């Protein structure tokens, strides 16, 4: 699988550019529209997380790589911040009522729910979050 990669500084100003990059790749690789909209939410969550937490004292780079084969579409989001596995965070209570509902924790829930498969790895000083989607709707994970 070959990947198209966008590298930019990890700031919210670049969020739209990152989302447009993934959307363009998803269209080119024919990811089903409904899956694409879910993926774009998941990508935003992962990107924003890197912007907020990966480089607390410095500026840093985030890279977004998109690739596909005949059946799957893959997005990898990479930063070189301190080791951090987003997927280690607990699931939010999505049944709490309005006053008990916590503000945080939803981002990782969206990443899990809106992708078919998601994994974290630490490789050569980088955090890599890999999200995989089956290109057609209704394919079991």
């Amino acid at each position, binding site marked *: 699988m070959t990947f198209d990669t966008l590298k930019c500084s990890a700031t919210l100003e670049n969020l739209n550019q990152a989302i447009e990059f993934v959307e363009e790749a998803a269209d080119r690789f024919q990811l089903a529209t409904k899956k694409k909209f879910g993926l774009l*939410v998941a990508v*935003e969550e992962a990107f924003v997380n890197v*912007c907020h937490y990966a480089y607390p004292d410095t500026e840093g780079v985030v890279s977004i790589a998109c690739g596909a084969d005949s059946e799957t579409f893959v997005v990898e989001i990479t930063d070189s911040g301190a080791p951090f596995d987003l997927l280690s965070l607990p699931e939010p209570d999505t049944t709490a009522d*309005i006053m008990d*509902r916590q503000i945080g924790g*939803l981002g990782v*829930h969206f990443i899990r729910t809106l992708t078919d498969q998601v994994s974290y790895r630490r490789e050569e000083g980088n955090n890599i979050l890999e999200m995989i989607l089956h290109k057609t709707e209704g394919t079991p994970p």
Partner: protein
Amino acid sequence: MTIQTTKEANATVLTIAGRMDAVTAPEYEKMLNEQIAAGESAFVIDFQGLEYISSAGLRALLATAKLLKTKNGQIRLANVLGTVREVFDISGFGSIFQIQDSVSAALADLG
């Protein structure tokens, strides 16, 4: 994202269009907080033109709804459709907010 404000007899209607994401959600929160500070206590948020919402958008909705509840205010959502509806459903927000099919139904529900 654009926000249009309309005063109805029993509520303020905010019509939101575009994308409510990590960049734009703070604008929504700021506007609602200002209206609440100015004494408004009943709101209908019309999502007819909203194309996209992320967790940052949901967080802004939740924060303002909590503030409003402490002031005995009320909020209704209208026209939560498509991808936006899907995000509400998987986050559980579909059951913590009172959602109506139209602005007129939301206004009627506020009484």
